[in-house]
């Protein structure tokens, strides 16, 4: 069994060198993989562009009055149950165990859209980071290169080729919650209290859009803080707003920026009271998103991730995957080599 002839000795020498060689190669690979600029790095795939007719929302924190009409409308058009935090359960039991007052504090399997507030110091001045307060709307951003779609093993998360809307299909979903783990914005949620729980997230009211009606949140927003439209149009509008000066009068549209979906609506003139941040959230973050936000308060204060790269993380993980498994050529080659060795070597071992 332990044949020690000349050939096996020299083969061992060869193997030892091979091991040393591959260790050196691994160290070299390590250096190139980590240090190379993205465009020269074989382990990074190119980012995915936005479909030209992608649609989304523009949220303007300075226009938001925190009325939460959008939160209620979102629940209505999507038939979502009320969400009652533990602190409210005592007085909010309603008749029997049916709560009467919806009081979500965070996105959850029952809440696809929530308005959250930032406050600092005395909280006296709206849209001021110091001694002030500001609102932020949280919902799926419909990424150009979404992590949730990249990770889903069973195509339950998909991105519409035309509208770019990121859809979820519970009938395909296995509930692995990899989408929850991977979303850079912490959006998809799962119902842990349900034996047959589902993943929930905003799907940009695709059912409303199919009827040429506005998404619930953009439909009811009284100030146009939530504005619907083509992402390219919204981006231009966001640039216009961030260039506005304090004390200027400006026009702010409502509903659909193009005035088509849901019929034309009148906008309003308003004095710009707080200086906009130049940063348009979602323009560059992680490959860009179809839903954008502008604000007078820095976005990290509004609890949005700001220290993120300009390419989506799928460019990195799929880059590794595609390099190693392109056309399954590498695994097939390795398999052939292994099979050859195993075939030859098992001949010596009559047992096993």
């Amino acid at each position: 069994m332990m044949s020690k002839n000349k050939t096996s000795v020299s083969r061992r020498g060869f193997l030892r060198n091979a091991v040393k060689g591959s260790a050196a190669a691994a160290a070299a690979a390590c250096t190139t993989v980590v240090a190379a600029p993205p465009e020269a790095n074989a382990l990074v795939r190119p980012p995915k562009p936005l479909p030209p007719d992608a649609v989304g929302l523009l949220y303007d924190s300075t226009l938001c009055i925190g009325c939460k009409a959008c939160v209620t409308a979102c629940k209505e058009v999507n038939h979502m149950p009320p969400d009652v935090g533990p602190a409210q359960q005592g007085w909010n039991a309603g008749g029997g165990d049916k709560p009467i007052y919806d009081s979500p504090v965070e996105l959850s399997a029952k809440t696809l859209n929530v308005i959250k507030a930032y406050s600092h110091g005395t909280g006296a001045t709206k849209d001021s980071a110091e001694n002030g307060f500001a609102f932020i709307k949280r919902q799926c951003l419909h990424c150009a290169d979404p992590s949730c779609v990249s990770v889903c093993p069973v195509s339950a998360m998909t991105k519409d080729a035309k509208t770019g809307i990121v859809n979820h299909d519970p009938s395909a979903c296995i509930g692995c919650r990899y989408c929850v783990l991977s979303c850079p914005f912490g959006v998809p949620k799962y119902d842990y209290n349900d034996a047959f729980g589902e993943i929930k997230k905003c799907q940009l009211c695709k059912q409303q859009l199919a009827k040429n009606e506005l998404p619930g949140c953009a439909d009811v927003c009284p100030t146009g803080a939530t504005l619907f439209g083509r992402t390219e149009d919204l981006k231009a509008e966001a640039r216009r707003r961030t260039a506005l000066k304090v004390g200027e009068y400006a026009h702010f549209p409502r509903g659909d920026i193009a005035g088509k979906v849901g019929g034309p609506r009148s906008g309003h003139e308003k004095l710009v009271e707080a200086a906009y941040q130049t940063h348009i959230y979602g323009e560059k973050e992680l490959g860009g998103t179809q839903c954008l936000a502008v604000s007078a308060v820095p976005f990290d204060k509004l609890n949005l991730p700001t220290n993120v790269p300009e390419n989506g993380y799928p460019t990195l993980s799929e880059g590794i995957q595609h390099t190693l498994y392109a056309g399954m050529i590498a695994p097939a080659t390795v398999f052939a080599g292994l099979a050859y060795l195993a075939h030859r070597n098992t001949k010596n071992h009559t047992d096993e």
Partner: protein
Amino acid sequence: MSSQAHEHQPLGGRVLTLPFLICAALVAIAGVILFQRYTQGLAAASNLNDGYPWGIWVAIDVVIGSAFGCAGYVIALLCYILNRGEYHPLVRPAVLASLFGYGLAGLAVLVDLGRYWNFYHMMLPWYAQPNSVMLEVGLCVATYTLVLVVEFAPAFLERFGIEGLRAKLNKVLWVFIALGVLLPTMHQSSLGTMMVIVGHKLSPLWQSQMLPVFFLLTAILMGFAIVVWESVMASLNFRRPMETPVLSKLSGLMLVVASLFVVLRFVDLIVRGQIGQIFGGPQSGWFVAEMALMISGLALLIPKANRNRSRALFLSASLLLAAGILYRLNVYLIGFTPAVGPWHYFPSVKEIMVTVGVFALEIALYLLFVKKLPVMHAVHPEHG
């Protein structure tokens, strides 16, 4: 070839020993908790939440458990690919340990999946999403578990005297052996790739394009360590002679792999410009602990004499195993911070008991199998 037919033999002895009964009781407790989980949802049994959608059921039962299952992988690699016949006696116990490691990792997935009744969608081509690293891991692990069944089949066929089939199987076994080396190489490295996509949510101490390399290295290392561990434990518990000469050769390889891991870890941190994180970064203590275990484990093996001492071998294998466990736990849980909002996670008692139950089932089945089937290498009087 009558001598070969007796190369392996069942250990025999009572099945209902105290350790076996303790394991059975732990499995029963896990069963009760799982009843709650399936009737009332994941929250009834676990502290899983939307900040930490993956807890110990993924990090320990699947990610660490499958590394425990790498014994068969490394031994097959040595024995059949590098043609090192001296490792032959270790093959069957290693393959058996792998079979349970992987089989139960698969079972643990069904515990964790929120929509488990759809799990077979992973196998159906029309649902496949080829960019998903998880799909690759899932398919690889499922196929590998089948391969392990085939690799272990000779022990079964031998026990029940089905020699004809066994001879036929022996002719094609090389295909399965090759697959048995290829598949773990693929999915163990992919377990690392799976966390690349979480990006900034994983501390820069662990987030790297090198994650697949580190996961492959820890898989090999933990595979070796488990072989040593299991061999020493079997010798002590079943009063068999120590297999020290074979193990000492194995430990030389452990030393190489562990050193490579440590060197690459530091090179990676330096190249990414994150070396400063070691000193007082948020989770630096966990990094230090991981490295301390790894370095002390490999340092023990540097003096050649230690590699022939079963105590030193056992201690070193334990340290390296702990290092591998901690590395994987760091990547999947400790080094992870959710994107938005304050979330907390610490496993609930029930969650821990399920994990304990999964491992208890593994041990109970292992004990049963080595007693009833020809798994262990026969001990000849002249050796003992």
